């Protein structure tokens, strides 16, 4: 058996991290590497200015640090993956539910100016509650209506925050 150094962590992290945590760390590190490239490329493209310290003076070191920390996270995750704990099982279709939630939020963002605040928000409430496992959908639709109507009355009519209205005026 070839001996490799056991990878240690600082602070209060568990001795054997869960496989899921390790994979997420690797993905996050990868994302940081991408961000590092974006930040550095963007900073290099900035024009020289007459000032002593230009606009790129701070982004450049941040980009480099992003890259360094991102790379460390990826490498460390790679080393930890071998003896990671399997972790507890989760309910099925979790990823699917998150995807549905994201789609709902995007639809909310797009439809809000068209359908108005009350309808969009009531729908958002109901769909979220149902995705989270609410037992009685009809009840959630009613709650959603009540809550968003209340919010609309308080913030639009009372406080004067202008919320988008649909063709029916609310």
């Amino acid at each position, binding site marked *: 058996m070839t*001996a490799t*150094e*056991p990878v*240690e*962590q*600082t*602070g*209060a*992290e568990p001795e054997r991290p869960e496989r899921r*945590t390790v994979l*997420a760390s690797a*993905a*996050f*590190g990868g*994302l*940081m590497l991408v*961000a590092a490239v974006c*930040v550095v490329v*963007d900073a290099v493209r*900035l024009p020289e*200015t007459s*000032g*002593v*310290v*230009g*606009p790129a003076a*701070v*982004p450049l070191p*941040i980009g480099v640090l*992003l890259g360094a*920390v991102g790379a460390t*996270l990826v490498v*460390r995750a790679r080393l930890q993956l071998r003896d990671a704990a399997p972790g507890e099982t*989760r*309910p099925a279709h*979790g990823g699917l*539910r*998150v995807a549905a*939630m994201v789609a709902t*939020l*995007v639809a*909310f963002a797009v439809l*809000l*100016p068209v359908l108005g605040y009350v309808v969009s928000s009531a729908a*958002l*409430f109901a769909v*979220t*509650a149902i995705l*989270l*496992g*609410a037992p009685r959908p009809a009840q*959630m639709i009613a*709650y*959603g209506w009540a809550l*968003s109507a209340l*919010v609309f009355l308080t913030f639009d009519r009372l*406080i*004067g*925050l202008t*919320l988008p209205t649909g063709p029916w005026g609310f």
Partner: protein
Amino acid sequence: MDQFGLLLDGFAGALTPGHLLWALVGVTIGTAVGVLPGIGPALTVALLLPITFRLDPASALILFAGIYYGGMYGGSTTSILLNTPGESASMISALEGNKMARAGRAAAALATAALGSFVAGTIGTVALTFVAPVLSDFATSFGPPEYVALMAVAFVTVSALLGPSLLKGGASLLVGLTIGLIGIDSQTGQPRLVFGIDSLLDGIDVVIVVVALFALSEAFGHLLTGTGHSTIEPLRERAILSKKDFKRSWPSWLRGTALGFPIGSLPAGGAEVPTFLSYSLEKRLTKHPEEFGKGAIEGVAGPEAANNAAAAGVLVPLLTIGLPTSATAAVILTAFQSYGLQPGPQLFSESGPLVWTLIASLYIGNVMLLVLNLPLVRLWAKLLTIPSYAIYAGVLVFATLGAYAAGGTTVDLLILCALGLLGLLMREAGIPVAPAIVGLILGPIAEEQLRRALTLSEGDPSILLSGSITIVLWAVVVLAVLTPLGRAWWRRSRRAKATVTPGSGR
């Protein structure tokens, strides 16, 4: 004695019916939201930020202060009855408090938490009254180099203390710093990290980032893991302390306060450290060591007091230097900025009456919270029976409302969603979000000070190490980076020795 007169003026300002009403609204919202699991004070302040633009600054700040203190009280109720601490600082009270509740002593645990919070909050606010003006005077001598060094201390300690490790805390901090770069550079007018998207020119609103990282990631997380079934410990009696419990509690309150305020007021990260220290201190000093881990009242009283005293302490660097050391303080700093107020040494001289009204309202809020929490705690506990799907659906409604009020366009809502997914990945990876908030808000200020310093010295970086204060502060930075690294190295070498078995061929 100067402070007394100013404080009395502050009370005169805070005791007007309008301000009292806002204080009451603040502590009520703060407690209610603090009780709801998964929603901390930082998120509450962020959500209310765009909605309060129509209030005058004094009312708005009083409201936020009430939410800040109220969130602390509400959080301890949840951690005792439900064992799901809303924020890391109340993790310790969940440890002993929930055990007490399971043993049928929920009322005593809640009472010692509320009274301890009151005692610590009041002593902490008194200390704030006298320490802040002195520190503010001292801080007027600070130049850009001192500010750069102070912010470096805050960055490093926040990364190291608000998460499981310096690496992950640092990763979170860098996320915040990067988001803070987006938009037009205030000094040269150059757009940075905009990629041709017009709505990014003004940067991403702090509210959107806070709401996405705290609220959306929480909701996404529950979609992934299922909301689970948490059992609420029933609360049968009124929250009253027996004589015996009181006798055991009060020394712990005072010890917790003595740890919490000074550590909280350091320009280094937050309220977590004093609560942990207080817990281990109580464990060492107790006459009932057998009860620890099974529900010792000292283990609730001390950390709760430390937590609240630290909350008052955090306001010291925030008000006097403009240095937030917790996510909530960072969001409150944004609230100040949105009213054109820059916390820092000038705040006390330029907006003195406002600051003293704010401090006076902290005293008032603390009294209100005691009244709200001791007799009404059963009412708050009822909030815990709202099913979690309804809570998170409601949170999303308010989250999108806050983001829309802050930005007002579809793009803002899309950014909210994208950052929410980023927050989910951070949760999954065990990366804390609080350092990102501090980095986001402090980053642009630090950059401005750094460039000011370098412009003063015409590009010579040695100005950053001029003066004894800066040298001490940079030494702290180096120490804070090296300590966790050194500890890891020491542990690894010890572990390596222990794992060498004959024939392993090392």
